[in-house]
């Protein structure tokens, strides 16, 4: 009898919970249908009103699903901004329907959607993937639309290589670039007593300093000095940059092509071994890594830095929103510094994100998508409207607590770059002393920018991650053996895939 009563009670409680949730979902005035825009209760920034709402092309007819929409978990300010853009788009192009369709690109999720015809018209793969997508026929040729927009002449040759095929057809356009640096949680530096008299954190300049400062932070605060995502491909990605700074470039480069065209992996050069010993010391000597390193992914690093579980994170300028607005770290407690230098050099990995189009995209859809990109101010054109769009974007970022910083432009257009700079200055919400080093470092040459290794980079990162995992989970693991195994593994892969 008692059991039954308990059960009924539990069921009633759970049911009530559900009803409450469903009711909450429904009471909002947004349409709750699938794929609809999420609830937005915040007005878009007023700067957006400066964009002209005159009709530009009444005849262009297309329905575009935009994968570059902010995720529905995004802060309301960002969603409001895009909702504002959508309304302006409707006014400028009355026959273009914009469907928000946030899509966090991964190859495995994109593939079935592209094959099944459900991929968004526009999506954003990293620079590592366009060639694979082009070869597999998974993206649309947008050469004509780009030409119509006058964008083709603005393409630098390297982007034509990146986004085109051997026939000179182009399948996408660059969005922006990133440069790897280091995110800093200033609160932990303060707690550990690592502050200068000017109230700035005593951030590391070199990898050695990173280890030492990390140890002080561990001793003083009990938190991890460095959060390191030694999982999936992330560990190898960051380690590659560390290896460069130990000198794994030039003759010691991780990949090189022989004269007969054969690709060779070289993970056992002296600088690589030194770099891996350094990695080892971070865990077993300085003990500055987060405990969960081997299961921490990229998102995890931001969770950890943003909530003050670690003080340093090797991360890029394009993700400053993650630990701050995304994870609740106030902008005053955040800094971005250059990637620490090593004994063999001072490099920073650079890469970027592209815009590409689903395989069944029509010419009109591509043109409409480009119009939308121009509307939000990411194409290299300086007009009153694009300035207003950039200002609205900066205002939205400021309102939700993201450090407003100059971007790293994908287009080599001086006017456009100057405009971006000016807007960032106008809306700046940070103490630029915490960022200047980063942005100056690759202008004044104190850091050399370096693109990713040329072939099957993701696979290489995966194999290197496994070696790192071995080193940081087994105290007596042999560094050379771990690197040899990774090298063998990746060489097998290269032989299978391109050396046949």
């Amino acid at each position: 009898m008692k059991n039954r009563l308990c059960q009924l009670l539990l069921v009633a409680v759970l049911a009530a919970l559900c009803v409450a949730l469903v009711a909450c979902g429904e009471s909002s005035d947004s349409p709750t249908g699938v794929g609809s825009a999420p609830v937005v209760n915040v007005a878009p920034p007023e700067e957006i009103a400066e964009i002209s709402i005159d009709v530009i092309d009444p005849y262009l007819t297309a329905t575009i699903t935009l994968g570059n929409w902010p995720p529905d978990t995004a802060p309301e300010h960002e969603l409001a901004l895009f909702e504002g853009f959508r309304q302006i788009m409707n006014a400028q192009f009355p026959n273009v329907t914009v469907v928000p369709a946030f899509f966090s690109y991964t190859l495995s999720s994109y593939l079935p959607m592209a094959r099944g015809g459900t991929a968004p018209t526009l999506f954003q793969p990293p620079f590592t993937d366009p060639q694979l997508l082009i070869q597999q026929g998974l993206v649309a040729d947008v050469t004509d639309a780009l030409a119509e927009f006058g964008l083709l002449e603005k393409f630098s040759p390297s982007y034509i290589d990146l986004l085109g095929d051997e026939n000179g057809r182009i399948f996408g356009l660059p969005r922006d670039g990133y440069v790897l640096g280091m995110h800093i949680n200033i609160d932990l530096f303060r707690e550990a007593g690592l502050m200068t008299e000017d109230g700035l954190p005593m951030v590391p300049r070199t990898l050695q300093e990173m280890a030492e400062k990390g140890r002080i932070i561990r001793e003083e605060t009990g938190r991890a000095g460095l959060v390191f995502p030694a999982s999936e491909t992330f560990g190898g990605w960051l380690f590659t940059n560390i290896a460069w700074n130990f000198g794994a470039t030039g003759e010691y480069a991780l990949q090189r092509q022989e004269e007969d065209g054969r690709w060779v992996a070289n993970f056992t050069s002296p600088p690589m071994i030194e770099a891996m010993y350094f990695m080892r010391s971070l865990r077993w000597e300085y003990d500055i890594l987060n405990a969960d390193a081997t299961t921490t992914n990229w998102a995890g690093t931001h969770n950890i830095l943003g909530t003050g579980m670690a003080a340093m994170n090797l991360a890029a300028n394009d993700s400053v929103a993650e630990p701050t607005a995304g994870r609740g770290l106030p902008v005053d407690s955040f800094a971005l510094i250059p990637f620490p230098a090593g004994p063999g050099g001072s490099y920073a990995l650079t890469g970027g994100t592209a815009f590409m189009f689903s395989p069944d995209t029509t010419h009109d859809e591509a043109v409409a998508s480009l119009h939308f990109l121009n509307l939000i101010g990411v194409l290299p054109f300086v007009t009153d409207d694009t300035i207003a769009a950039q200002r609205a974007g900066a205002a939205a970022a400021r309102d939700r607590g993201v450090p407003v910083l100059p971007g790293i432009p994908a287009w080599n257009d001086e006017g456009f770059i100057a405009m971006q700079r000016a807007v960032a200055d106008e809306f700046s919400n940070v103490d630029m002393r915490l960022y200047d080093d980063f942005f100056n470092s690759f202008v004044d040459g104190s850091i050399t920018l370096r693109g990713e290794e040329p072939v099957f980079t993701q696979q290489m990162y995966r194999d290197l991650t496994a070696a790192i995992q071995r080193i940081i989970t087994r105290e007596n693991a042999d560094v050379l053996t771990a690197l040899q195994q990774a090298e063998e593994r990746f060489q097998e892969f290269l032989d299978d895939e391109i050396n046949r």
Partner: protein
Amino acid sequence: MRKLKQNAISWLIMLPSIALFAFFLWTPLLQSVRMSFYRTRNIELVEFVGLSNYISIFGRQEFRQALANTFSYTFWSLLLGFFVPILLALVIGETVRGRGIFRTIAYLPNILPGLAAMILWSAFFSAEDTGVINIILGHLGFESRTFLTEVNLVIPIIVFISTWRGAGATALIYMAGLAGINPELYEAATIDGAGIWRRIRYITGPAIFNLGSTLLILQIITVFQIMYEPLVLTGGGPDNASMSLMLLMWNYAFGGAMDFGRASAVAVVTAVILLGFTVLYSIINKRKIEWD
């Protein structure tokens, strides 16, 4: 003539279902075999390459490791996944008051989605001091452990979580089996002077053994399906220590390389090992597995 028509109509009635079985189960299995002999691009077969996919995967350290791990998974899931349900069944069978509740509660984790369970337990086995098990260890005065980052612990932990989900359901099968034992057997044994331990040995034990040998093969089949568990918890790491054959297949196919040929080769090897187990099992058991 009438009979012929009858037969034709009967086949027609079964046809849609047979087509579905063919589409979802049988042809994919055959296609796996075929595809394993081909190089693929996108989802098309490009070139017949003979055994080279097999040679290539056997040459890869990650595959050899996954193969070895599969036996480690099997070992642990026999240790935990096989004996825990028996223990549950025996213990719950001894209770009188609250038995229904115990049974129901032991079964509850089984209805939770496996993915949700994995995410939930990943917070328990977090290596940070804020991981739930580390919190509990801390209260008990123990040092924190680093669980899923430890090469030797990661497979036992994954098997533990699977057991947590599945043990209650398996225990119910044993309980049903034990309930079927003729009560007079116990009484007769007691009259003969058999104590509790001897009853376990001569009555309960054999009953469990009979059931267990059938459930064993199901247990092994389940072990070979392990894929999303390490995918969600560890990605197969650290250093491939929890890589399973099916996860390797998933990685080859959907992890970025789109290498469906090698993925199929891994699948075929797995199927062959499984068939080997089944044949071995039926030889040992000297009886065919009859389900109908």
